[in-house]
């Protein structure tokens, strides 16, 4: 479809850049927005611009927050000896939803990937080392990174650095998600889960 309005074309182009969005979906959303009342569209555009303006990174854990330090790092109920290492802020929310983890976090902001020119200095590994040195009395790091090659490499790298500092490093187990029907699990995951089977 050839668009007749320059303004509409601009909006479609910007929307189409969003992850998971094709040109067709972008057109559908742009047309939908046109039909909404002014107030609704204004609230959306304000939310988008506030996102960049108001959101901070916590100076302790580098999670996104409205106030620095973030509520988790400020909380006195949190166990300061255990830190969970995650790749992105969204992973903090995933772990928090379980209500099981009572330690704090460290958000790396990525994983090591030479192909994308991301080395240890491009993610917040030095900041992690600094936290350990600064006397936060961290006894254990729990690696909750993706089990892909880049996540593993990042885990190895961190483990090697902090091991000599007397910090224990553990990693979360990978296997079959609870509540998932067996038939929906890919064969490789299932085979690995068989290899790691436990006594009933």
């Amino acid at each position: 479809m050839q668009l007749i309005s320059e303004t509409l074309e601009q909006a479609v182009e910007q929307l189409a850049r969003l992850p998971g969005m094709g040109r067709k979906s972008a057109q559908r959303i742009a047309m939908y927005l046109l039909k909404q009342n002014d107030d609704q569209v204004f609230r959306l555009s304000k939310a988008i611009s506030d996102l960049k303006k108001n959101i901070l990174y916590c100076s302790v854990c580098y999670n996104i927050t409205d106030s620095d330090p973030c509520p988790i790092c400020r909380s006195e109920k949190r166990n300061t000896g255990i830190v969970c290492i995650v790749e992105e802020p969204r992973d903090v929310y995933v772990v928090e939803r379980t209500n099981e983890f009572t330690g704090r976090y460290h958000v790396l902001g990525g994983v090591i990937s030479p192909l994308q020119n991301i080395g240890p200095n491009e993610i917040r590994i030095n900041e992690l080392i600094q936290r350990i040195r600064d006397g936060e009395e961290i006894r254990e790091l729990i690696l909750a990174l993706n089990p892909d090659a880049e996540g593993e490499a990042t885990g190895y790298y961190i483990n090697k650095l902090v091991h000599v500092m007397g910090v224990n490093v553990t990693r979360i187990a990978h296997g079959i998600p609870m509540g998932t029907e067996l038939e929906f699990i890919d064969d490789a995951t299932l085979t690995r889960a068989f290899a790691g089977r436990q006594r009933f």
Partner: protein
Amino acid sequence: MINTSLSLTNFRNHHQTDTVWGEHVNIITGPNGAGKTNLLDAIHYLCMGRSFSSNSDQYVVRLGERSFLVKGMFQGTIRSSFEVACSYQRGEGKRLMVNESPLERHAELIGLVPVVLVSPEDKKLTGEGPAERRSFIDALISQTSPVYLNDLIRYRKIIRQRNRLLTDLHHYPHQLDDMLEPWDRQLTETGSRIVMKRNIVIRQFQSWLEKAHEQLTGTELKPTMTYKSIGENDTSEERIRESYTFQLRASSVKERERQQTITGPHRDDLIFFLNDMELRKFGSQGQHRIFALALKIAQLYYYRDVLEDLPVFLLDDVFGDLDPHKTEIVMNMLLKHPGQSFITAAHPDKISGLTGGDSDRVSNYRVSGGKLEQVR
């Protein structure tokens, strides 16, 4: 596994072709360029998620169109009946679907419908470089083992990441070892699992290779396939890993010079022998051709041995190359094969006399100009 029906839309020279297939031998004849191979290629798409005759999906789209669609129904022993579909659209890419739900990863398709393909390209297996032989062994194992396929995909990723570090090594002259270490550990871990699996399968494969070669030639020469790798002939993952780690360290100067990973299963090779004679160096053209065909028939036998479901057997233009005696042997083999097979041939007269007695097991089709019809 039986492909009961197939539907092509804008697939190469097929505008719209819908057909049902016979359960045993399906013979597709027609002049060159009529679209015979394309039907086999479409079945191959549903088994492996890609073409065997083209490197790029975009060349498979019918001229002047933007997308193609292949759909097929399959009948197996464990999964009774299911549909596999593959669609491709220019600019959007490819989608694989099983029973109309899209697969997240291409790898999930592999092994669902096991396939063995015989094609004129097979001559590269015995005649060209090691990459051809590695892809043969990888396709052979991947269809029976999703873990192997996963390891393979991961290993290739690690190699790419590691090669990038070696190319950029001037950025961190004093840190390179520290930077490489996390990749080295994964490289040897994943790589040794791959080597071990190849070792085991190649050993099991040997008897099937002998059987297939004997059927094709009589008994005179014994074919063997030896595996050249780190820790070859070792079936302990631990020992293979030790030897890989050792060789990786030993090649560290060389790989910095060449700026790439030069040890590991991505450099493996298979060497073919007839008795003591190395096929690649001393084999005649005829011996090459029969060896390559024996490898594929052995693949079929191997799957019959280890898989619950029989593979779909595709033979693209094999008879063009074979003398009448060998043609008869292969045809008899197919008539006895309990699974389903598809054969293309340019000249129907070459095989018509060979199928007469088993007409209930043979279905004949004719293609011309991208149109298919069943011949009674």
